């Protein structure tokens, strides 16, 4: 299925062309372009699909499945983006999917040879959801370039699992599947350490959060929404209005039932 994005009503998985078989967990792959994201997708799902080495190659959203410990997982390969802040279509698709389709786990694929740039994306995803795993891909390249990464410390600093992989050689894939499984079953509970902004901004966030909660409930990250409001992100705001309408109807029907 092509990446047919419409900016109308994005509140459920159906809108993302995902037909969910009950209790089949959804795993999203996010990350910068050229991090071997599509190679990882192939390594996970075994789908034969071409992965070029140039920006924007994943213009078609790919989906696949894998089975681990007799359980089936649905993997969605999101478009490769540098950030989730700007207004490109790819960024919107990736962001709205993580925010509104609420995948059970979002794996952020990181190029180990270029970690600083890629962590930018990890930190942004962590603001949207806490169910994040960092996949330090191309770890073999990093070794070759004599770059060492203390994955333990990185995991502690970020507050989320970090798994080194070399998707080209299937290294670390098993471990990644295992960690994903543990996160879904609740054996691992990520506690992301979020970016702290300056005092003025933090005060504004706190103030807004207190107003967002009664409106939208706990389903979405209130801190992230506060940030987007302060950033005046108009596209997200219209998506939020849709969400709010549906949320309100849901709340009302609950009241009626009670």
């Amino acid at each position: 299925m092509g990446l047919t994005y419409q900016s109308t009503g994005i509140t459920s998985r159906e809108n993302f062309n995902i037909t969910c078989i009950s209790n089949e967990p959804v795993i999203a792959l996010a990350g910068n372009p050229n991090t071997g994201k599509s190679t990882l997708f192939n390594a996970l799902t075994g789908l034969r699909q071409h992965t070029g080495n140039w920006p924007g190659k994943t213009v078609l959203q790919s989906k696949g499945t894998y089975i681990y410990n007799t359980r089936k997982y649905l993997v969605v390969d999101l478009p490769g983006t540098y950030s989730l802040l700007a207004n490109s279509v790819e960024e919107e698709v990736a962001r709205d999917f993580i925010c509104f389709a609420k995948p059970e786990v979002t794996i952020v694929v990181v190029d180990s040879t270029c970690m600083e740039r890629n962590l930018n994306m990890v930190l942004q995803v962590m603001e949207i959801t806490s169910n994040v795993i960092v996949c330090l891909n191309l770890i073999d390249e990093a070794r070759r370039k004599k770059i060492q990464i203390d994955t333990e410390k990185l995991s502690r600093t970020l507050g989320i699992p970090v798994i080194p992989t070399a998707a080209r050689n299937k290294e670390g894939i098993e471990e990644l599947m295992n960690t994903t499984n543990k996160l879904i079953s609740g054996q691992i509970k990520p506690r992301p350490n979020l970016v702290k902004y300056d005092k003025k901004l933090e005060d504004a966030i706190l103030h807004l959060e207190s107003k967002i909660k009664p409106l939208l409930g706990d389903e979405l990250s209130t801190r992230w929404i506060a940030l987007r409001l302060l950033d005046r992100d108009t596209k997200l705001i219209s998506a939020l209005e849709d969400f709010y309408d549906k949320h309100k109807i849901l709340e009302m029907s609950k009241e009626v039932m009670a």
Partner: protein
Amino acid sequence: MSSPIRQLLDEAAKSCPNQNEVRDNIVKSIYSSAENITSNTQYVEDKKSTDWSRKIDNILTSPIWGFPIMLALLTTVFWITIAGANVPSSMLATGLFWIEDRLTEVFMALNAPGWLRGFLVTGVYRSLAWVVSVMLPPMAIFFPIFTLLEDLGYLPRVAFNMDRFFKKAGAHGKQALTMSMGFGCNAAGIISCRIIESPRERLIAILTNNFVPCNGRFPILIALATIFIGGSVAASISSIIATLTVAGLVVFGITITLFISWLLSKTLLKGVPSSFTLELPPYRKPKIGEVIVRSILDRTIFVLTRAMIIAAPAGGIVWIMANTMVGDTSLLAAFASWLNPFAQLMGMDGFILTAFILGLPANEIVFPILIMSYISGSGMLELSSLEALRHLLVDENGWTWLTALCTMVFALCHWPCGTTLYTIQKEQHSWYWTFLAIAIPTAVGIVTCMIINLLAKGFGLV
């Protein structure tokens, strides 16, 4: 009344009125966090390790070597394809036409009616045999080499080198990437135009993608260049001359692309170039085995299957057209002779133009259709080699190098195939742009062919 969300937005605007400041703050904090975390968890042992990517880039994008290397690579890829495809092509043709003879014998032995044998063997089977023997070898060579270049990371460098030209044409540098995809398949090229952010520049890229010869048209260029241009010089250099001809045509296509892009950005699609950022990722060692498997399975087989699915019924239909008599000529010949005066102005003949028109579903079948329509009008029963093809075209149907050149130019510049048109319509949801995607290349093709024809005949070159 504004929605509660809008009210929240107003509140946010009140507490932090300077939007740029907020944005700067957010991005700065995120980046400095990333910087801190990285410096605390990453150790680079040997900072002086050679940066190969940079060294290679200094050559591949240098003012002196950048363009020569690009042209040399392009030509080399074509040369390997042309030189390498020759032998397997003729072997395949020999084998497949041997089978045709056996099939004919089987039909004869079964006392099958003549029309059934004609429809199935001369129509359907022969078209399939031509599609396979003309298309498979070049594709099986071209796709893996091209995928290799793609996996190495060379294509973004092409975009980097070429961007200035595209900027001058009011287009986007990434158009070089979508054009590269077009070499494989124009429909894929059109889809890849999504990587261009600005709608204006994306449309330019979509409308001009057809000036890159896809794999369906590539074999026409190769076959004609080999027979007519390569065949007119000594055998030792014939494949090199054929290669240079094909490379020249591709460069012509690129020039036309830039010219039409410029024209569009000055007329229908006015505007200033939007912001441009392009990553030059590090070069990576491709996995040769994976490249071959993927390019053969995903691309070659895919394109060939599509061609065969269309060629089989088309071959049958053309056979019927060639054998349905209207008065004392066949339907096909009548149609061709009706088109002939116009086609002659373009340096071609009515049959060639008919083949292009009937080839709308897929360019791969243009050549098989042409051969079939020629054969049905001649006494020839068999066609099993390029030499026989040369005989058919030159001796039986009066082709000259001019006919070949005009056919090649028209193959490069005419309406996109049905699949590509369908894709354009789906991407743009507009009949207007789809119509322009037909009109622009067709007009370019007609005009160019007429000019070539007039000049060649005017100077008495033919």
